[in-house]
C-alpha cells in the first residue's frame, strides 16, 4: 500500500474550499431575491454575464477602471429595479413556478441584449491580480483565489451590516420573516423589493468580475449558476450563512471526489456529484444545514 499523500490531499481540499467560495458568491445573489420575493431567479447568471460584459467592454473602450465599475453598478441597479417593476410586479401572487419561468424568459432577454449591445466576442478580463501560486510548505495556493475569497468574505460582512443596522435592512428582514405582517405595519414592499434587486445586481457585478477573470468574459459565464444550485439545495434558498457553508462543503467535496473517486469511474463526475452530495445530506438531515423549515413547504 502506497503511503497516503497528505500534502496533496490538503492541496485538493484547500483548492476545493476556495472554489467553493466562488460558488457561494453566485448563490448569495439567489438567496437575496428568494428571501424577499420567493423567486428562484434563474436570470442571475444572465445578470452576471451582462455585468461582466458591460464592464469589460467599457474598459476596452478606454473608460477608467473606477468609472467603468461605477457605470456598470448604476446600470445593474437600474436593471434590477426594472425587472422588479416590469416583470415581477405584474406577477405578484402567482405560483413560484410561474415566477421561475418568468426569470427564464428574462435570462433570454438579458443575454440577448448583452450580446446585441457588446457583440459575441470573447474578452479577457484582467483585474490586475497576478495568478501566480503561493507555495505554503509544498502546498500551492492560488493568489487569485485568495483574493476572491477575501472579496466574497467582505461582501458577506457588508451585506450583514447592511441588513442588521440600516432601516432598509431591518425592513428587509421583516419582509423575509413575514410579508403580511410587514405590510400590516406599513412597510412599503415595492421599495424594499427594488432595494433587494439592486443588491442582487451588485452581487452579480462582483461575481461577474471575479468569474469573468477566471473564465474570460463570454456567453458561458451564465452557466455558473449551475454550480450555485446544489449549494442552494444544501444551504437553503433563504440563508446567507447557508450559502457560504454550503459552497465550501460542495466545493471541497466535489474536488476531493473528482480526484479520489473520479479515477475509478472514469472522471468527469463533478457535473452531478455536487447534487448527489446535497441530496444525500438532505436525506440524512432533512432540515438542511441551518435547520431551514422551508424544505417541507411548497
Amino acid at each position: 500500500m502506497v503511503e497516503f499523500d497528505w500534502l496533496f490531499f490538503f492541496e485538493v481540499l484547500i483548492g476545493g474550499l476556495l472554489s467553493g467560495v466562488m460558488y457561494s458568491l453566485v448563490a448569495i445573489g439567489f438567496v437575496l431575491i428568494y428571501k424577499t420575493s420567493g423567486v428562484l431567479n434563474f436570470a442571475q447568471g444572465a445578470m452576471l454575464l451582462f455585468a461582466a460584459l458591460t464592464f469589460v467592454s467599457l474598459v476596452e473602450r478606454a473608460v477608467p477602471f473606477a468609472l467603468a465599475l461605477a457605470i456598470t453598478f448604476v446600470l445593474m441597479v437600474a436593471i434590477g429595479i426594472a425587472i422588479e417593476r416590469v416583470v415581477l410586479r405584474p406577477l405578484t401572487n402567482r405560483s413560484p413556478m410561474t415566477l421561475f419561468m418568468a426569470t427564464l424568459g428574462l435570462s433570454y432577454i438579458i443575454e440577448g441584449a448583452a450580446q446585441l449591445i457588446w457583440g459575441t466576442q470573447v474578452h479577457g478580463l484582467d483585474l490586475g491580480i497576478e495568478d501566480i501560486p503561493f507555495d505554503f510548505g509544498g502546498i500551492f495556493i492560488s493568489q487569485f483565489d485568495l483574493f476572491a475569497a477575501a472579496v466574497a468574505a467582505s461582501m458577506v460582512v457588508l451585506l450583514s451590516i447592511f441588513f442588521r443596522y440600516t432601516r432598509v435592512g431591518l425592513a428587509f428582514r421583516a419582509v423575509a420573516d413575514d410579508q403580511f405582517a410587514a405590510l400590516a405595519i406599513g412597510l412599503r414592499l415595492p421599495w424594499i423589493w427594488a432595494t433587494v434587486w439592486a443588491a442582487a445586481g451588485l452581487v452579480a457585478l462582483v461575481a461577474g468580475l471575479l468569474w469573468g477573470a477566471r473564465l474570460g468574459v463570454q456567453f458561458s459565464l451564465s452557466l455558473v449558476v449551475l454550480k450555485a444550485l446544489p449549494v442552494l439545495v444544501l444551504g437553503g434558498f433563504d440563508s446567507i450563512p447557508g450559502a457560504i457553508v454550503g459552497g465550501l462543503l460542495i466545493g471541497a467535496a466535489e474536488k476531493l471526489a473528482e480526484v479520489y473517486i473520479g479515477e475509478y469511474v472514469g472522471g468527469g463526475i463533478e457535473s452531478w456529484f455536487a447534487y448527489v452530495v446535497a441530496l444525500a445530506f438532505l436525506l440524512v438531515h432533512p432540515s438542511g444545514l441551518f435547520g431551514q423549515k422551508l424544505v417541507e413547504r411548497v
Partner: protein
Amino acid sequence: MTAIASEFSSSHRIPGWLPPVLLLGVAYLIVPFIGTSYLFEAILLPFLALSLAGVGLNILTGYAGQVSLGSAAFLAVGAFAAYNFNLRVEGLPLIGSIILAGLAAAAIGIVFGLPSLRLKGFYLAVSTLAAQFFVQWALTKFSWFSNDSASGVIDAPALSIAGIAFNGAVGRYLFSLTVVTLLTFLAYRLVSSQSGRNFIAVRDNETAARIIGVPVLKTKLLAFAISSFIIGVAGVLWAFAYLRTVEPAGFNLDRSFQILFIIIIGGLASIRGAFFGAALLVILPLALSRLGSFLLGDVFNSGVLDMSQRIVLGALIILFLILEPDGLVSLWDRIRKRSAAVFGRM
C-alpha cells in the same frame, strides 16, 4: 383550478369526443396528402414528440404537483434504451423496444423521484437536476450505450411495425401520430381515474390527502414512473422519428426548460395544454426568424436579427405568463365560449 374544471365541462351542442376525432381525421386523412417535407420534418415531427413529452411532464407537474427540471434526461434514457434494446435483443419487434424503453425511463424516474418523498417545491426541482446531469454524464461516459461508436452519436434504425415500414417523412409522421394518440388517450383515462384524483389530492394538500387515505408516497412515485414512461417514449420519437440520430448533448438542460415552458404556457393540469404549448414553442421561434429575416434581413446582419429574436422570444414568454395565467388552454376556452355565445344568439 379553473383549468381542470373546464377540462371536463363540455360544450352543450358539440359532444366532447367530436373535436378530437375530427382533428385526428384531418391529421390522418388530409395532412399526409397535402403536407410538404418541411411541414413534417421541421414542424410536425418535433411538435408531436414535444407534445408527448409535455403530456408526460404535465402528469407529474400539473396533476401531481411535483416539479421536475430533468425531463430531458428521461427523453435521453428513452432514446438510448430503445436504441440498445433494438440493437441487442435479437428479434425484438420495434414496438417491444419502445415499450421497454418507456419502462427503463420509468425505472430511472422512480429512482430520481425518491427525493420527492422528502423534498418539495424548488428543493425538489433543483434535485431533479441530478438526473439531468447524471444521465448525460453516464451516456457519454460509457460508450457501451452508444455501441462504442467513436463519436457517441447513434443512428436510428428503420421504423417498421408488423412488416409495415414507416419510411420517409410522411411515414415517420404517421408513426409518431399513432404513438402520441395512443398514449394521450391513455393519459386522459389515467387523469380521470382514481390515480388521477390521487395525484390532484397530493398536489393540492398533501396532509389532507393522507387523512382521506391516499397513499402519498406510492402516489408520488407512481406519478414519477408514469410521467417518465411517457417522456421516455417521447424520447424515442424524438430520436427515431424526428432527428434520426441522437447524441447525449441534445438532451441538455435547455430541452428540460423547453418542456416545462410547454406545459406552463399551454396550461398546467391539462392534457390539451401540452399540445397548445408545444405548438407555440415550435412555431413561434420559426415564425419570428422568418419574419425577422423577411422584414429586416437587408438592414441588419443575421447576428443582430437572431439576438433580437431571442429578446422578443423572452419578452413574449413573460407577456404570456402575465396575461394568461392559466395558459393557452383557458384562452382557447374563452374564445370558444364567446363564439358559442355569438352563435347561440344567431
